[in-house]
């Protein structure tokens, strides 16, 4: 357990010291949100309708940006081999790194989402649901994303391939997440969407570390 926490702490520290930590992801989130009205026009009712889905898509894209570095730096400097040799099973190492990734991307986006929803004129009924759905669903971006990151670790130009690999895995989260918010806005009970979202999230909690570790072992052998 202490090795697990040490790994989470190390990745958090690294992201703060070299990448600006959570602020870079937030800046990206803010930039694309500013682009949306510029692109589709400043019609408030149009923006309000699209806001929930757009924020979910933006969250998916924002987490993609940092995913290709999830294992890349460790593969390059050899710390990945150290991790594989250590006492901590590789599955848990992948989980620790995914958690650290979520803490620096998914969590800040979740906290910032209501502010951005306000800027996009999203109906107020959806705010709580949006935050809660991102809290439950955004870990999938880090957990399922870890599979793609592990498959492309050690490739020189893995970034584009990575997005092709993980976007199909992101489809269910975006569907249920944005679905929950639009249900809440339209006055329906978002409970069913939350249950599905939770199920997808729990499922990727298992699948991500297992498949990610299997993929990492390929590059280590």
């Amino acid at each position: 357990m202490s090795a697990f926490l040490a790994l989470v702490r190390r990745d958090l520290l690294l992201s703060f010291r070299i990448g600006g930590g959570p602020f870079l992801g937030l800046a990206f989130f803010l930039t694309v949100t500013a682009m949306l009205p510029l692109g589709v026009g400043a019609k408030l009712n149009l923006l309000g309708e699209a806001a929930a889905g757009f924020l979910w898509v933006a969250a998916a894209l924002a987490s993609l940006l940092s995913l290709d570095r999830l294992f890349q730096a460790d593969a390059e400097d050899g710390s990945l081999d150290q991790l594989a040799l250590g006492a901590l099973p590789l599955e848990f190492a992948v989980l620790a790194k995914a958690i650290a990734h979520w803490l620096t991307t998914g969590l800040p986006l979740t906290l910032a989402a209501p502010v951005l929803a306000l800027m996009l004129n999203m109906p107020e009924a959806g705010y709580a649901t949006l935050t809660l759905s991102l809290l439950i669903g955004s870990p999938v971006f880090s957990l399922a994303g870890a599979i793609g990151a592990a498959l492309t670790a050690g490739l020189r130009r893995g970034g584009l391939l990575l997005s092709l690999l993980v976007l199909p895995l992101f489809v269910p989260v975006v569907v249920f997440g944005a679905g929950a918010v639009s249900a809440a806005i339209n006055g329906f009970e978002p409970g069913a969407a939350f249950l599905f979202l939770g199920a997808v999230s729990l499922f990727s909690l298992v699948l991500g570390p297992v498949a990610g570790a299997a993929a990492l072992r390929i590059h280590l052998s």
Partner: protein
Amino acid sequence: MLRFANPKKFLDLSGALLPWLWLGAIGLMGWGLYAALFATPADYQQGDSVRIMYIHVPSAWMASFIYGFMFIASVVGLVWKHPLADTAAKEAAPIGACFTAACLITGSLWGKPTWGTYWIWDARLTSVLVLFFLYLGYMGVWAAIEDRAKAARAAAILCVVGVINIPIIRFSVEWWDTLHQGPSVVRFENGKLAPSIDPSMLWPLLAVAVGCTLLFFALLFVRMRTDIARRRIRTLMTMKAAA
């Protein structure tokens, strides 16, 4: 099954089967497509646009069949570490991607006169589109990783993860589809897959479907034989360079 896993045995067997596969594929597809275009009646509801169904439905069937085939080959490759299974999965992917692309485009060409739009975001179309992305990603992994054994295992893991995810994706887009139900869309799902389809339409459809399946195996065997030959060339070149 594993008896044919030896490359030599595979070369013998596939060499013997190939002429029959080609013959069957060309015969069935030739007759089926001719009948589809000229001999079958127009549907009383869909008119002549129903003729697109004779290529669209077999393409859709091939798109999922080939992914299933790749899944089995990937599992065999992962568990028994068999190079021939890896080759089979690798060489099946481009064929599957072609059928998936054909399925999407013919479907949208059928949708324009029937539904009034080239593309609707319904569950079926969306999940086939995601399947197409899965094919592209799978081929991308093979292309990106130079070491063959590593590429095979990475691609196999991706394929297995993809298959685990297909039901979830399917379920999510179906759920989403009921949420976003557009009122203008007329559905013909019964017209497409109803078992009460007239025999004069059923036989050409079956002929094209079976013909496509035979064509897939013919192409797969040719591609696998090419791949084996290519590896042999590499070995010979290395031996020459070393000598």
